[in-house]
């Protein structure tokens, strides 16, 4: 029990500490791929420190909701980071939330962020909120069906259970169901975390932006919380992709050695996924907003095939 609580706390703290570095790493890799020198991977830490030291400017039209939203977004994303297996399986936190809870907790953050976008009455915020919830809504079916595919082979929606089953049956990791579900979830990850080709995390004040438009009115410590939560969300998706589909390296026993190994392996997995995202973001251009549904439909078809293939190939 105590060990479980400590492991869960360790997972949360590790994710919290690592998240800005992941965003920085993707940015740095992209810069290198584009023949730029780029800011070092630890640049986001400096940005967060800078934001935490600045004053907050709040619109006179904003209500209490604007002040509450950063905390809801941050706390719910952090809660997800505690639940998702980062270091070890199975933990007792599995009982607090399964994969569906993860999806809906992230949706809770989107809900409040979109409302906060509307709150100051700016057209940018409204536009971002409208697009943000549109993309989130269209990504839902893929997420749910990908969960179905994973739950079907594991017989459970519990995160620890899914990872443990794959470890017990290594061949299932290369089954068509798993591979297709991985591809589907990867596309959804791009949509949910506002990466290219759905949203451009590097853009500002253009009519193409989604996430940046929603948080345009935020500044200072509030913006820091939101940026940190966004980085954490990216890391959470990396952890889902890395540890549910390729669960090897996760600690099964709570020894210091096993946990350190798990942390090392996790860092490698995150690095590989960061390279994949960076390469992808260098290779593709942003899609027009109204082409995004096509991409999400494609990911949905992949997820649907993932579920049905496990039936057909049985």
């Amino acid at each position: 029990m105590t060990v479980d609580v400590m492991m869960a706390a360790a997972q949360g703290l590790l994710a919290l500490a690592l998240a800005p570095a992941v965003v920085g790493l993707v940015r740095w890799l992209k810069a290198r791929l584009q023949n730029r020198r780029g800011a070092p991977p630890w640049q986001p830490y400096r940005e967060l420190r800078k934001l935490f030291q600045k004053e907050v400017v709040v619109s006179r039209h904003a209500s209490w909701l604007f002040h509450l939203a950063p905390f809801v977004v941050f706390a719910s994303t952090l809660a997800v980071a505690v639940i998702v297996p980062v270091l070890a399986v199975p933990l007792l936190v599995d009982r607090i939330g399964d994969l569906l809870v993860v999806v809906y907790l992230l949706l809770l953050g989107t809900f409040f962020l979109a409302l906060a976008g509307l709150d100051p009455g700016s057209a940018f915020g409204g536009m971002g909120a409208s697009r943000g919830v549109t993309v989130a809504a269209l990504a839902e079916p893929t997420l749910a069906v990908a969960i179905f595919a994973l739950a079907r082979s594991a017989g459970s929606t519990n995160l620890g259970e899914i990872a443990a089953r794959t470890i017990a049956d290594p061949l299932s990791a290369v089954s068509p169901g798993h591979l297709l579900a991985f591809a589907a979830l990867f596309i959804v990850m791009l949509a949910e975390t506002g990466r290219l080709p759905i949203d451009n995390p590097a853009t500002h004040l253009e009519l193409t932006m989604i996430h940046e438009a929603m948080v345009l009115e935020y500044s200072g410590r509030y913006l820091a919380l939101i940026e940190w939560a966004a980085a954490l969300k990216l890391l959470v998706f990396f952890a889902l992709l890395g540890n549910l589909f390729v669960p090897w390296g996760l600690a099964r026993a709570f020894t210091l050695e096993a946990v350190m190994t798990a942390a090392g392996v996790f860092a490698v997995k995150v690095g590989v996924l960061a390279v994949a995202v960076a390469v992808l973001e260098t290779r593709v251009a942003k899609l027009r907003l109204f082409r995004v549904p096509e991409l999400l439909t494609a990911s949905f078809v992949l997820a649907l095939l993932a579920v049905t293939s496990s039936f057909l190939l049985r």
Partner: protein
Amino acid sequence: MTPELLLLAVSVAGYTGGALAALAFRGVAARALVAAGALGGSLATLALGAWCLATGTTLAFAAPWLPLTGLALRADGLSAFFLTVVGLAAAAASIYGFGYSAHHDGRDSLRLLGAMFNVLLLSLTVQVLADNALTFLVTWEVMSLSAYFLVLVEHDQPGTVRAANWYLAVSHAGFAALIAAFLVLAAGDMTGSFAAMRSVGLTPGTRDLVFLLALVGFGTKAGVIPLHVWLPMAHPVAPSHVSAVLSGVVIKMGVYGLMRVALDLLGGGPAWWGGIVLGLGAVSALLGVLYALMEHDLKRLLAYHSVENMGIILLGVGAGLMFQSYGLPALATLGFVAGLYHTLNHACFKGLLFLGAGSVLYATRTRNMEDLGGLITRMPRTAVCFLVGAAAISALPPLNGFASEWLVFQTLMGGALVPRPEVAIGMPIAVAMLALTSGLAVACFVKAFGITFLALPRSTEAARAREVPASMQVGMLVLVGMCVALGLTPFLVVPVLSRALTGLGRLPMTPIGFSLHLPLSVAGVTGEMSPLLLAVGVALLGVLTAIVLRLLADRRLRVGDTWGCGRIGQTPRMEYTATAFAEPLRRVFAELYRPTEDLSIDFHPKSKYFVRTIAYRSEVQPWFERLLYTPFLSALRGAAAGVRQVQAGSLHLYLAYMTITLLALLVVARWSR
């Protein structure tokens, strides 16, 4: 007299007293007595339901000396559950109604409203207890008619009479199907008692017929697509606390009836019964929310969400029926529990949202979201209540909508246990439709709350809005409390619901177990979650973040203008509108909406770069409704013209008809002996 019968008597007395008081008194006295009667009655109903659920006791009462087959009442677990739903929503609506109906003081409409509100509640209470066909059908009709009059209360508003007529016509079409269903089911048994119907052995074909008739009859009441057209018309035009009862409770009678007939009286059937219900549920859920997205009338938006949520309930019930026929009783119980849980939750959050919309209407006199905005500072308590309702209906943890949708998801995923191709492909699609529905519901309620309550007011009415009277706030707060409580405690609710279902149809007698978290272990499908721990955890993390921030981060805060690209002075016209908010989704689903757009610009005669006025109109027509209803209505009109030939208006002719019919019947009776 047993305590159950006493509670029932108190409940009936409360409703009757409230109805009579509406007729006997005028003004504020009438309003207070109506509310008191309805509140007393509904609290007794709630107590009766909760008591029967908690203790497992049943109630039986019969008055066979009444005309025809007499009155027969019986409460089993299912009845007790629905009594709880009725009592809960009605209690909140009664308290709210006291303040809300103040503008009816001194008008005749108060009599109609007060009397019919109590009659509606009475009919609902008796109906879920009905133990013979006659009691059921009579209370069903009383319920439909009282609801019709309640829809008509504000008949001076445009569109109300038309909506009420639609409602009346569709209700009666459904009622005809129900009469037919019960006649077939009774199979010549003149008592029409439910006990006899359970044991009657019908051929499979006849059972299918009864099921389909019941599905049509109860589907019209439940507002299942394509039988939903009346719902978004009728519910919004009723007074708001009545809308809360109509959407929260009355349409649930469709679910009750369907479960009573298909599961209890018929004892379940082939898998395609469940498949049909499941399919109708999935379509209703998705189309309901899609049409809600395009709606900018706050109450119509909520009415379309009722269609959506009935769909989610039917997903659970349909999956239950299906798994039962595949011989997976534990999973079937889970499906029914999920459906019933969502029924209870929907009664709470939809009731709450209609009361919230009613408060907005009360304060601003408008339901059009494009004229609202900025109410969060003007009506802070209503805003918080509406926000809780919006989060609950969007299935956000840790509120109640999430708990039941999670169960529905788990049930549908249990379809993996059925080794049949149609299920293997159908269930993932149902899961996907449910997921899309809940994603779109989030979008829709960000719109509903964001445009109505946030930013700057878009009209002087909204700018002048003030918080509503205390009674209305209390009514909303009751339901806010229920949304939170039901969301945090699925580990208490689920076992009670599964126990209520035991013995119904061929469901097993083993209820689903519970602990602080909710471990589901139903033959191969497992999943765990604990909204309570989740809520505590997220709240702790949030508070911790706030404390750390207070200690370490900069604490300065400056109030400034919203950034306007250098433009000084912000007006409401710069805000995003509800139409604009829903525009991306309207484009994505353009094939479904087929919107018509009408743009007219009046240029300055000297230069087309100066625009004088600009008018934009866009409408979304549910084309498939026209596709379905136009041929039907024109056929109906043709038939009516045919009947008119026979109805010449001559008394002699009618007497001749009667004589001929009588003779024909006598001959048939003689012949068949």
